[in-house]
């Protein structure tokens, strides 16, 4: 008798997922309110190869990023969004934390720690959404992805015009911190990201992005950023640089074919004074671009996608320098070919092979990357 009752009890639970499955298919629930849970992650293997494509040094296996998305929808207008990120397992960051208030169908107000809308990957950085195990290096050395700072902004969508827009006033990167330079010739602005952690403010900066999706298959974007870097020495102008960054990008989809490209240019002012004061070698112009094309060979044959892709990428943090010779090591080119196998829109296995070179030498280094990418 006891056994029977347990079986009955278990059976009553079995019925629940059946009803829920129907529910998902029927989609008749009301607009969601309450807790939203999600996340993304990438687990990578990076290997350096010699001329015979054998490992020539130690490789790296890394839980590169593991991000938990937690949101709360208070009502149809007010939503809180947060992303907590574990990077390389031991580093903990807050990647986003902002309150979003919908004024009307075309406009929302946002305040908090937000992503700077520059280029494609800083906004769309969930690993299954891009090809290649690692993010593009234009989006590491020119756009310091994941670039986020605290500020306020508006964004929205104009359906009639097929335009998404974003405009924000944010804190800038910290270029000078108690005697040391955070910017560098090699990594540009990357070292200055404050990430919302007890961030120093001396100036407010502005960032914006427009994207146009009115042409079938295309998505065009234009981004800008304008302002001054922050400094711990409030009185010293020589510890700040002026930043003007502009970017254009395009993405294209047509059946099995996909392509994307991005061009980012940053003009930095006052670098001669900044370098003289800090001993750094920051360039006065940073430039990077990439072009990528891919083809889904399983198109029409399977629900899954197997994308074969190739990418050419150039990024130079010394495109121009003020008062000293540019370092040709910082003019870098990556050529990448690879595979993205999508088991679903949110889960992918990736592999790619990279040839990296610099303007300083004709030698190319070879790299093999393998990765797992998820988004839910």
């Amino acid at each position, binding site marked *: 008798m006891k056994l029977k009752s347990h079986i009955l*009890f278990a059976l009553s639970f079995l019925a629940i997922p059946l009803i829920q499955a*129907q529910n998902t*298919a029927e989609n*008749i629930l009301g607009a*969601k309110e309450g807790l939203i849970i999600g996340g993304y992650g990438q687990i990578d293997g990076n290997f350096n190869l010699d001329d015979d494509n054998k490992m020539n040094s130690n490789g790296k296996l890394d839980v590169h990023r593991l991000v938990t998305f937690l949101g709360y929808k208070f009502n149809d207008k007010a939503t809180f969004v947060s992303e907590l990120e574990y990077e390389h397992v031991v580093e903990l960051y807050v990647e986003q934390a902002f309150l979003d208030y919908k004024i009307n169908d075309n406009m929302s107000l946002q305040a908090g720690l937000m992503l700077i809308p520059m280029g494609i990957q800083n906004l*769309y950085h969930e690993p299954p959404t891009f090809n290649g195990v690692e993010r593009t290096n234009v989006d590491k050395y020119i756009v310091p992805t994941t670039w986020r700072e605290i500020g306020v902004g508006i964004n929205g969508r104009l359906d009639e015009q*097929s335009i998404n827009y974003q405009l924000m006033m944010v804190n800038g990167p910290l270029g000078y911190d108690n005697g040391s330079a955070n910017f560098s010739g090699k990594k540009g602005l990357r070292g200055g990201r404050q990430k919302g952690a007890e961030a120093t403010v001396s100036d407010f900066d502005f960032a914006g992005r427009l994207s146009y999706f*009115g042409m*079938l298959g295309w*998505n065009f974007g234009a981004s800008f950023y304008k302002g001054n870097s922050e400094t711990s020495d409030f009185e010293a102008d020589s510890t700040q640089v002026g930043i003007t960054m502009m970017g254009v990008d395009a993405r294209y989809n047509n059946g099995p074919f996909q392509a994307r490209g991005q061009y980012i240019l940053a003009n930095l002012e006052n670098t001669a004074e900044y370098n003289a004061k800090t001993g750094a070698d920051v360039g006065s112009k940073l430039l990077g671009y990439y072009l990528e094309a891919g083809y889904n060979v399983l198109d029409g044959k399977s629900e899954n996608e197997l994308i074969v892709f190739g990418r050419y990428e150039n990024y130079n943090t010394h495109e121009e320098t003020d008062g000293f010779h540019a370092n040709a090591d910082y003019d870098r080119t990556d050529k990448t070919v690879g595979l993205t196998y999508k088991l679903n829109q949110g889960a992918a296995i990736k592999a790619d092979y990279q040839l990296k070179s610099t303007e300083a030498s004709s030698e190319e280094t070879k790299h093999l990357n393998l990765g797992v990418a998820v988004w839910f």
Partner: protein
Amino acid sequence: MLIKRVVPTILVGILFLVLYANKAYAQWVPSEKMLSKAELSVQKQFNIDYSKSAIDLNPNYYELTTNDSIIGYMCLQQAPSKHDMFDFLAIYSSDMKLLKLQILAYRENYGGEIANKRWLKQFLTRPTEKVQAISGATISVESMKMVVSSLSQKMKNWYQVHHITSK
């Protein structure tokens, strides 16, 4: 023994079922504003005065009539985006051909590109699986494809049953 163990277990089971079933079948009620937005689109589509009455399939699906003859159907439907739901309008002809799709409300910051009219028009001219992807809106695109094709199928089934029984 039987009454003590089995009956409460069944009752608990039924309670769960009722709770979940209620949640599963909780009916979405579009706002008045959304409904009038949809009606305006229907007016533009047929260019004729009409009256509407909900069909027994779903209170948000309507039969549209002029002088007792059916001119078409309008459906207000929800579908999931990444973390929320969006609402759209589907207009069908009197013989259940899809005539128009329109996004009525998109709530998330990402993926709103599916509101693009040219993109939505693809559903009228090509099979759903041939509808193109949109960069940056993949999840909502897939959701829209799934829900539109399921809605059209449901409406066609309803139409066939309805017509057989009415004959």
